[in-house]
């Protein structure tokens, strides 16, 4: 039998009524765990928001070396007209779809890291995603890097939404034995439905059945703890979402919807340390301009709205947003108005906490790797190390398995 301690943290066992207890105070308790062993003390109310651009975004048409004559040569059909880019400096400009991010650049809230990758790159989506999610190009780890963060800090023991994954399934970056991070697809559906004729008795029996699950079979503790965590977290989420008033009008696309939910738990102070959302469709083997321009518009609008919402609620100092994608794409276009899998993609970092600028080595379009891609220059784990140490205030060596030199994209 699973003990109640294994499944349910203290203070949340008793009954239906107490589940609505002051969960928002839990945000303050997070400080205890995370301050132990950390380098310079970081504020305990910081949140990291991770946005996955799934499919392998073409960095070259996102952050464009518009003044490099080689760019036009390699992309005769696929080029973004240099006259239309949103100039960041003499060399680089953003795809014109990204007006929102350009505004953030102008407001000193945007940093860009070019040429991100890792040794022995994989051109398989699933493999490369797994590498980014485990932070283990050589298979050093099989669990998620943020799962290891939560295990190290026990942050998710103190708040139901210390981690929150907005989507349909748990992102592998959060997966590690013993850690349950809630996945929320839609707040409206995030409830445990009980026949009102008999709800209290059923809930009590239901709880007993979860704790009574045998440990004989290895999946049972996972299912039971997900169930118990889920039921308890439904109340927290319902409160956060119903009491939250956005100060912007979010778009109707799913990413905007996800960010709105993230905004609600952040602004309502549910103790969120890490939030996650995803935008897919970046695997542009064909018809890239149309597909990517649309996706970048969605991304840019959603993120800039989100940032504006956080600013209006006084949360902008506490939130950092970072985007990642499993690889970049080949420099030369293919025959279907698209690009094949490549390397050396870009990452965006947004928020008041950035030191704005361009990081990483400027890609040389004439010195490509054997796959025909940009040579990567920044190991993504250096970015992770920066986020863990510099933003979340925890030691990253155990989580990443080695020391990585931080990339200086954070303000002091």
């Amino acid at each position, binding site marked *: *039998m699973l003990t109640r301690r294994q499944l349910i943290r203290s203070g949340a066992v008793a009954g239906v009524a107490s589940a609505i207890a002051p969960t928002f105070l839990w945000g303050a308790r997070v400080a205890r765990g995370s301050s132990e062993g950390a380098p310079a003390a970081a504020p305990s109310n910081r949140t990291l928001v991770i946005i996955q651009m799934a499919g392998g975004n073409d960095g070259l048409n996102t952050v464009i070396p518009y003044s490099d004559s080689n760019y036009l040569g390699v992309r005769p059909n696929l080029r973004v007209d240099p006259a239309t880019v949103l100039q960041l400096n003499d060399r680089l400009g953003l795809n014109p779809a990204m007006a929102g991010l350009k505004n953030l650049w102008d407001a000193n809230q945007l940093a860009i890291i070019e040429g991100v990758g890792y040794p*022995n790159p*994989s051109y*398989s*989506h699933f*493999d490369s995603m*797994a*590498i980014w*999610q485990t932070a*283990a190009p*050589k*298979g050093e*780890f*099989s*669990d*998620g890097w943020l799962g290891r963060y939560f295990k190290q800090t026990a942050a998710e023991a103190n708040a139901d939404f210390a981690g929150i*994954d907005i989507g*349909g*399934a*748990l992102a592998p970056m959060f*997966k590690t034995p*013993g850690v349950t991070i*809630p*996945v*929320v697809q839609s707040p409206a*559906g*995030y*409830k*445990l*439905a*009980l*026949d009102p*004729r*008999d709800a209290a*008795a*059923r809930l009590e*029996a*239901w709880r*007993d*059945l979860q704790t*009574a*699950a*045998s*440990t*004989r*079979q*290895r*999946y*049972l503790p996972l*299912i039971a*703890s*997900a*169930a118990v*965590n889920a039921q308890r977290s439904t109340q927290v989420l319902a409160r956060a979402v119903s009491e939250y008033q956005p100060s912007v009008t979010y778009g109707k696309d799913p990413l905007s919807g996800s960010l709105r939910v993230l905004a609600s738990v952040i602004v309502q102070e549910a103790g969120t340390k890490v939030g996650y959302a995803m935008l897919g469709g970046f695997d542009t*083997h064909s018809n890239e301009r149309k597909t990517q321009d649309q996706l970048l518009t969605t991304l840019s609008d959603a993120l800039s709205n989100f940032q504006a919402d956080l600013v209006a609620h006084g949360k902008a100092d506490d939130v950092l947003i970072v985007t990642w994608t499993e690889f970049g794409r080949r420099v030369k276009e*293919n*025959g*279907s108005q*698209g690009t*094949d899998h490549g390397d050396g993609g870009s990452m965006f970092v947004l928020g008041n906490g950035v030191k704005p600028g361009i990081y990483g080595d400027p890609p040389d379009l004439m010195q490509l790797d054997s796959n025909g891609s940009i040579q990567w220059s920044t190991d993504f784990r250096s970015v992770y190390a920066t986020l863990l140490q510099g933003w979340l205030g925890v030691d990253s060596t155990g989580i990443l398995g080695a020391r990585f030199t931080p990339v200086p994209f954070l303000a002091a």
Partner: protein
Amino acid sequence: MAISPTQARIARRAGLTALAAAPVAGALTAVRHTQDGAAPTKAPLQDERSRIAHLYRRAGFGASPAELDAAVARGYDASLDRLLSPADDHDAADDVLNQTDFDLAKLDDSQRWWLVRMRYTSRPLIEKMALFWHGHFATAVSKVGIKQLALMRQQNDLFRTQALGNFHDLLLSVSKDPAMLIWLDGRLNHKNVPNENYGRELMELFTMGIGNYTEDDVKAAAHAFTGWTVNRDFQYVFNPGDHDAGSKTFLGKTGTFNGGDVVDMLAAQPATAKFLARKLTRYFVSDPPDSGLVASLASVYLSSGYDLRAVLRALFKSDEFMTAGAYHSLIKSPAELVIGTLRTLDVTTDGTGLPGIMRTLGQELFNPPSVAGWPAGDSWIATNTVLARNNFANSIAVAQKPESGLLANVASLLSLPSVATASSLADGLTTLLVDGDLSGEAQQALYAYLGAGSGEAVDLSKQDAKVRGLLYLTLATPEYNLN
């Protein structure tokens, strides 16, 4: 100790997809002990009924008491024969489908069509394999497009017709399938400017698996499949003018290979045999799969000339399939959960509401999240999906208006009198739904819910809410999620 990047990748991918929350508690012993110290219950899979129920859960979507009675009368081997080679002249599901209205141009109704088919099929292994192939050659309407939904159904028919046939032939058919040609850009793969999408996924996901080919092989495969395209009516055509007829080197052999040659070579690879055997073992037997069983199934695949029926016969007759380690060892996929519940409880349905429920559970038919299909295993379990599983249980148990299609009549299902003891009611449900595989403490919790000592009488006709509550709670046990 250094391992090759490739070995690391395979290990990592296996590790990420097979994380469990806790180490396996205890070795495989002949007797099940409940953790709370109650008297040991009988070992699993020792009686014919339990073995056949296990077979139907795995090779199909479970069985109602009446179906199980018939199967037990037949015996295990005859039941397996029937699953592998249905003797009827048509699927009983067709009778139901023909009497139900569907607007198959809509995704929701196409999904509903297939769910009703699974519910009423008299050929459950065929439907289970059609679902397996749909997850294996995963193709999604999100890119194929709603306007071409008919192509998704055409692909579905292909998986049904060739479910247990010859893998080589299936692979060749899939390479010419119009939905697949759209999905993986086959139709954009041109003579002088090849598109590698299909060539890569064909090897990485459909046949040998990563680590068995190089990037040059991907390029060679792409060249070989140039010209394999669709015409304006989205029918497969071979366009010789767009085909690269030159020499290619593929998997160490050189020749003027066409796509058909690539299919021939891939079907014959020992790596393909092993990859498929492993995947089938994880789908039907246990995860992680037993390496001995995988090896022997791979061997059957090759020696039978890629005969899927032969492979599955060997699988369901293997010793490994009947061990305590295989019993209740997999997490039910959403399809298994939903259809299994409907079949086991003999629920009448026209499928209304089921597509939406499948979406909340994380498995949208005709729309897998990627070409890798659904990750399965513990990936089915997260806070949102476990809530959805419990809410599905609630929807089964809550009294519904008759038109909604989800009704349950517990007492008659269990063949109980209208006044029965609390324990006979609770035990009847746990036997029916979880094969009695609950801890003593859980059983006590169910009796306690009824508010009666285990031997006390419960008048089922006067206790509608309680009886439905008991059904809900049994369906809401963590154990019910195990297959």
